[in-house]
């Protein structure tokens, strides 16, 4: 960290320092757990009665309409709108800037109320054949089709922590949890993976796979 002079630009730290863990196993293949950092997250609240105006605007400017609650609208791999409340969604983008609200405000003007959430969350991605089985240990939501699809998003709680979950593929999930408890959340997910890794000494797991 460079702090030689107070005038130095502030150095940023990610919640988990960019952790990436690979859980290898001959029988089940690799399960990868990875922190995702390069994201801007802005909450967009819709003024009463301003639904369609805002939705059209976003569709024109970003190529994504306002999603209904529980759904994700994506534009390519760079922009996603997560419908988290009936009058509020998260804009998640990989195109980062110093002040995401300022930038988005240029587009939305007075049609939306914006609030920066980029630093509010630790974001983990879990992928591999065991992902589903691992999440089964902590996630109360049915993550299988058709209950939970590739355009689904849900906020729920896991191990006493608030978590937003989306499904990027059948074996790949993205999890957002509050930044301050990032370590507890990482622990919850890693324990889940370890607990479902096949154990060659015990006979109760194989059929499970």
């Amino acid at each position, binding site marked *: 960290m460079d702090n030689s002079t107070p005038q130095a630009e502030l150095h*940023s730290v990610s919640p988990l320092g960019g952790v990436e863990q690979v859980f290898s196993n001959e029988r089940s293949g690799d399960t990868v757990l990875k922190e995702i950092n390069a994201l801007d997250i802005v*909450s967009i609240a819709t003024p009463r009665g301003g639904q369609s105006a805002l939705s059209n605007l976003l569709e024109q400017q970003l190529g994504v309409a306002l999603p209904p609650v529980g759904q994700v609208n994506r534009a390519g791999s760079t922009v996603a709108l997560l419908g988290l409340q009936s009058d509020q969604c998260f804009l998640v983008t990989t195109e980062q800037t*110093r002040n995401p609200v300022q930038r988005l405000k240029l587009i939305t003007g007075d049609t939306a109320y914006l609030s920066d959430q980029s630093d509010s969350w630790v974001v983990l991605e879990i992928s591999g054949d065991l992902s589903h089985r691992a999440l089964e240990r902590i996630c109360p939501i049915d993550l299988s089709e058709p209950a939970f699809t590739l355009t689904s998003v849900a906020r729920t709680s896991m191990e006493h922590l608030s978590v937003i979950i989306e499904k990027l593929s059948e074996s790949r999930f993205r999890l957002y949890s509050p930044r301050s408890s990032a*370590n507890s959340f990482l622990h919850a997910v890693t324990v889940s993976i370890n607990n479902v890794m096949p154990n060659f000494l015990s006979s109760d797991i194989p059929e499970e796979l």
Partner: protein
Amino acid sequence: MSGYRVNQGLLADSPAVPFVFNNRPFSGVQGDTLASALLANGQTLVGRSFKYHRPRGIFSAGPEEPNALVELRTGAFKEPNTRATVVELFNGLTAKSQNHRGPLSFDVMAINDRLSPILSAGFYYKTFMWPKAFWEKLYEPVIRAAAGLGSLSGEEDPDSYDKGFLHTDLLIIGAGAAGLSAALTAGRAGQRIIIADEDFLPGGRLNLESFLVDDMPAAQWAAHSIAELRTMPHVRFLPRTTVYGAYDHGVYGALERCTDHLASSDGKPRQILWRIYTQQTLLCAGATERSIAFGDNDRPGIMLAGAVRAYLNRYGVAPGKQVAVFTNNDDGWRTAADLINAGVTVTAVIDTRSGEAPLPIANARICMGSEVIATQGRLGIHSVTLRNGQTIHCDCLAVSGGWSPNVHLTCHQRGRPVWRDDIAAFVPGQTIPTGMRVVGAANGSLSLTQALHEGHDAALQALQASGLTASANTAPKATAESTDLSAFWHVAGCRGRSWVDQQNDVTTKDIALSYQEGFRSVEHLKRYTTLGMATDQGKTSNVLGLAVLAKLSGKSIEQTGTTIFRPPYTPVPIAAFAGRARGKHFRPVRHTPSYQWANQNGADFVEVGMWMRAQWYTQQGESHWRQSVDREVRQTRESVGICDVTTLGKIDIQGADASEFLDKVYANTFSTLAVGKVRYGLMLREDGFVMDDGTTARFSDTHFVMTTTTANAVSVFRHLEFCRQCLWPELDVHLISATEQWAQYAVAGPNARRLLETVVDAPFDISNEGFAFMACAELSVCNGTPARLFRISFSGELAYEIAVPARYGHALMDALMQAGQPYNVMPYGTEALGVMRIEKGHAAGNELNGQTTAANLGLGRMVSAKKDCIGNVLSKRPAMNPDNPIELVGFVPLDANASLNAGAHFIRPNGEPNLASDEGWMTSVAWSPSLNGSIGLGFIQNGSQRLGETVIAADLLRSKHTEVKIVSPHFVDPDGERLRG
């Protein structure tokens, strides 16, 4: 020694497995339970009963076992009260019998048995009352030591446990004939299924009987069916999994035993507690056999007829060399038949029914219309006496009183079972859990063919309900066996005691006495005699007990009714319900962005809710926390200090009607707050008491940022959402928590501005003129990092709070410390924060405890009379506005060196220490470096009118009475010149 291994049963070619029971080495085979292995080794005596310490043997072959309870494993892994009948044998298993003093074969506590006439039901309610003091000192310790069963290790459970959530369309409980038949039909049609079975060898009684299914041995058919189901991707098979409870709306609790059959858990969870969410459920839990009450029917060697068959057919073990059968139904005869086929001697079949023998039993005495009235043998049975005086030799008596369907899960939502006379048993009633169907023996359909057909049919209905069509198949075929029975409960006129509940030692005499003393409702009977309250929850005894009671009252069993079946179906370890939430992981830990920084700079942390906060920073040469805290206070008041206040709740409030909304939720007015300004806000509950306080800043006409106390961040947010959605939905206002988003630091002290001027980017002006007390701004620091600056003060000093996005928190802390070097800046913790707020007379958690009003806090004037707000109306209730209200004031000891205790109560000098003279209490105390003495805040009647008066701070708990003077709560800078400077 009587039991022995006749063949290998299903365990052909199983390897030998050594184990230890009561310190003696034994050998069983893979696939044995501890019980079958003990029987195979001729170990008939395995335990002692609860009250009379009677010798007891293995009674059943399943979870209903009342007698064969052992302490399994050793050291911290010890598991008391473990049923030997369900313990899967593993290499090196160690078990001990329980509840005896001295060797199992000679328990000195067996003296109780001699005293049994006196120790009758409820005897303890009638004595042990004199002398009064003797109960805790003498009687109770003796009773307690004698009671109980196994013992805990006293050490932390070293195993780990996990939990999980499963979702399915069809849950099948039990993989016996009915369950497997259903699973095949539904599975083949592609339905999403979970099938759970409590046994480690699924198949239920298919593994215990000598039947044929689809022309192959039943056990083999079960194995094939399971193999087929395992190939179906949409079928989840859970062996060793007990569904223990049925909860609302199709939620089922299940316990999977992952490593209990292994010598070691090998780092994996020992058990998993599953919550299963299902659309439909088939309960295929089978039935449990029950005994008959007759003289001395509890001797080791007397067991259920079906259990004898189970040991013979599944484990290849004959529980005796000379077996007699006592039955009231045809099923009992099958035990005799199977024994004969295995070459075991059957000395007699005694049937309470007259007429023809339903089966031919070679070389056995057949006694129709007869009864066993007595048994002989000390530590094991050696003969029985019949009504006609005949004595019959046997080292094992197989008893069948009929079968009781396992209706438990149908009753977990308060459904009541109904009586069926033809099978003399309770079957599921009309009200059972939504989405559940009951199939096979659990439904009173006791024959194999019925089970197979009902399973198939129920699956068809389940498929239809979820819009699937069955692929063409029919129910598996089996030969129909007869299950005729005529109810028979209690052999009358026996001289010996007739046991009903073997574990709790409840006999027919106890039931009669209970009735005689007026305990005639089944619930009274249960509570007075403890019938059915043992670890088996009366699985083999309840119905028998009801029958005996019914006979006494001349009512039918149906009129007599049952007690309530409650979860769990079989006992579940407490640790399994807790899962991972233990030790340090009991609850999540929250860290602020500069936690690492604080860690590296000598911080000592304290739990504040989920947060870990720095309470002080120890510097070199400081050996006591007070040294650190005093230094932090002095340094702040003299120059400048920095405190991490990130944990305060921050709520981003936006909308066209945001200011109107704030006027409604705050007692004071916010619509008049200018943009760029901050105001202290007081929030009431609707009942008029203070809910929370904090500052709210206005960044634009439509944008406010509210801070809450750390403790109330979540509840205030919830309350605001209630106001927004439920009370004033017409308002355009939106909330989102920004607590996690911003790292926030208080910079306090005379040099605070000078310090900040070096980090705030030009052209922002934070001079006293340009940025006066209670100003706020969005600006940038350290070359463009977006930040928020608030000029507010909790310490009473010239102070600011500066916030940056969390990712920069650590770096900002470094930057501020750098910038502050010329002023000898240092960080201070929550203790110094607390001292300074007490010096300044600010209320905090100890004062805002939900019991105080604005008036109590001296903030009565803040409750606006001009507008409505939450709590306004009810805050005016008379009793909340008395003539002599308690008021928050300051206190100092008359003796300058004396210290103060929070929690002390105030009484007038020379007043008696009693409630009548209680005038209030001390809420917060501190040693004030600024005043160089102890100070306190507290509530006392009419405080504001009594400044200068002396009262006693009475701390009876710590026998510390201190004379204190009532003073203004504003110990430092009462006129607030510093914070405006």
